[in-house]
């Protein structure tokens, strides 16, 4: 039981981070549920049909998903804002549809036989990804990503190639989602395309947004709370989804920028708080 919690919370934390990584460069991706599916199926085929060891198989699955991410991301990232979101929704929906039509992996019946994930795999993955993101947040790359997220035009006029930066982040997000999906599938033993519908992608984005996307600690907190809330309201039975929805709405009302929305700067900001920014621009 406790093992279930550790695995599901851990997988969801990595998924939330996969959205966070893409968001670092300013794009919001609803495609990561699709990349998770690619990770689950590719790693599953590798372990079940070819006997590849689990960790190696998930890594390969991550690389495959990352490559697909870069490939579809290249045209997709030329669009912005709401159009980019719609394109990523399209990616998630297409991945599911493609998997459903491949008989080799069981079509809509799903694919089974994946075993081997322990809670330690997931804990190790969370720690590893967390360390990587922490290292990134202390490096000049954080500033470059902040610049692209805030103003692509300015970033470009400083010598940063915004499309390249966004593309690498999109690919990295796909990689993380796929690795999480690989371990997830090898814990569940059997997966079906239905599990990777667009709702999953929306949930992953919610994990990150609910926790706060201004620093790396928000998404794991959002993921943990959203994974555990349904368990706490188990006694409500058929009202569970409703209670869940109301709690999320409540949290977003109380903390619209996410639960953990403080600004984590690479050099410490003093004197003026972020709130003074909402007063608008200086006089022109």
């Amino acid at each position: 039981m406790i093992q279930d919690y550790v695995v599901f919370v851990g997988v969801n934390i990595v998924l939330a981070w996969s959205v966070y990584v893409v968001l670092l460069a300013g794009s919001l991706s609803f495609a990561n549920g699709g990349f998770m599916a690619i990770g689950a199926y590719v790693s599953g085929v590798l372990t079940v049909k070819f006997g590849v060891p689990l960790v190696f198989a998930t890594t390969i699955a991550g690389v495959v998903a990352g490559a697909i991410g870069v490939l579809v991301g290249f045209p997709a990232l030329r669009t912005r804002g709401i159009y980019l979101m719609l394109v990523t929704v399209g990616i998630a929906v297409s991945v599911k549809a493609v998997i459903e039509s491949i008989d080799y992996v069981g079509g809509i019946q799903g694919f089974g036989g994946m075993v081997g994930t322990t809670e330690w795999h997931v804990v190790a993955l969370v720690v590893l990804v967390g360390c990587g993101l922490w290292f990134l947040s202390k490096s000049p790359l954080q500033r470059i990503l902040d610049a692209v997220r805030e103003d692509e035009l300015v970033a470009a006029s400083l010598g940063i190639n915004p499309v390249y930066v966004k593309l690498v982040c999109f690919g990295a997000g796909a990689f993380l989602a796929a690795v999480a999906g690989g371990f997830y599938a090898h814990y569940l033993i059997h997966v079906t395309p239905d599990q990777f519908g667009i709702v999953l992608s929306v949930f992953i984005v919610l994990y990150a947004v609910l926790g706060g996307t201004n620093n790396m600690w928000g998404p794991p907190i959002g993921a943990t709370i959203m994974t555990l809330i349904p368990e706490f309201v188990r006694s409500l039975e058929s009202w569970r989804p409703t209670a869940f929805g109301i709690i999320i709405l409540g949290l977003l009302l109380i903390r619209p920028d996410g639960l953990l929305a403080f600004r984590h700067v690479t050099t410490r900001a003093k004197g003026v708080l972020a709130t003074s920014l909402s007063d608008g621009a200086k006089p022109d």
Partner: protein
Amino acid sequence: MDVVAQPILVVEGLSKSFRGLTALESVSLDVRRGEILGLMGPNGAGKSVFINVVTGLYRPEEGTIRYCGRDITSLPSYALARLGIARTYQNIRLLRRMTVLENVLVAIKDHVNQPFRSVFARNHCGFVTAATALLEQFQLADKSDWLAGSLAYGEARRLEIARALAGKPSLLFLDEPAAGMNERETEELGGTIRSSHELVEAIVIIEHDVAMMRKLSDRLVVMDSGRKIAEGRPNDVLAQPNVIEAYLGTDEPDD
């Protein structure tokens, strides 16, 4: 005091139109090493379009742009920035949610050229020291940990110029740096620009303020309706009848 030197930027026959509306019509000009070139003209004369084309924001329909002898006509703006062409914007564009120091640090060349290798970058202290020295020069060092969005107008202008200089450019474009400033601020800005001039090979300034341009620029180019109508020493150019006509002959809302 004609400077005899090979031009750093050679623009030939540059044309650009938007939906049939001509913004630039066969504009040719040189920017020489060591000079401050002033670019004047009434509103809508095509000055900003010219800068935007040269810094890679728009593609020209005709004409060539050569920088240090190299054809850069079709390069995107990040590539031009890496080659040493920096700019500021008419409506100040700071990274408002980043600190003053971060705004300068982000422009460091080693990092922007190889963003993902910068994760492993060392020598943070050296970069911070260099950035702080630059801020010192622009009287912003005491505000280095403020958020850029909270700076006063004049400070924001100075920071934008400091940030443009952080990448150690050779050629700097300033798009109406004195817009919205009072006389005293404009005076101070002149000093800032003159001290910036020691850090770059050449500066091109777009400006309305005649007094400032007369004092600051080594040469003046005047544009009207997308065409170059005069070029030469500030005092000579400003005395030309067609220049006076271009300025007086149009309503010039001061915005």
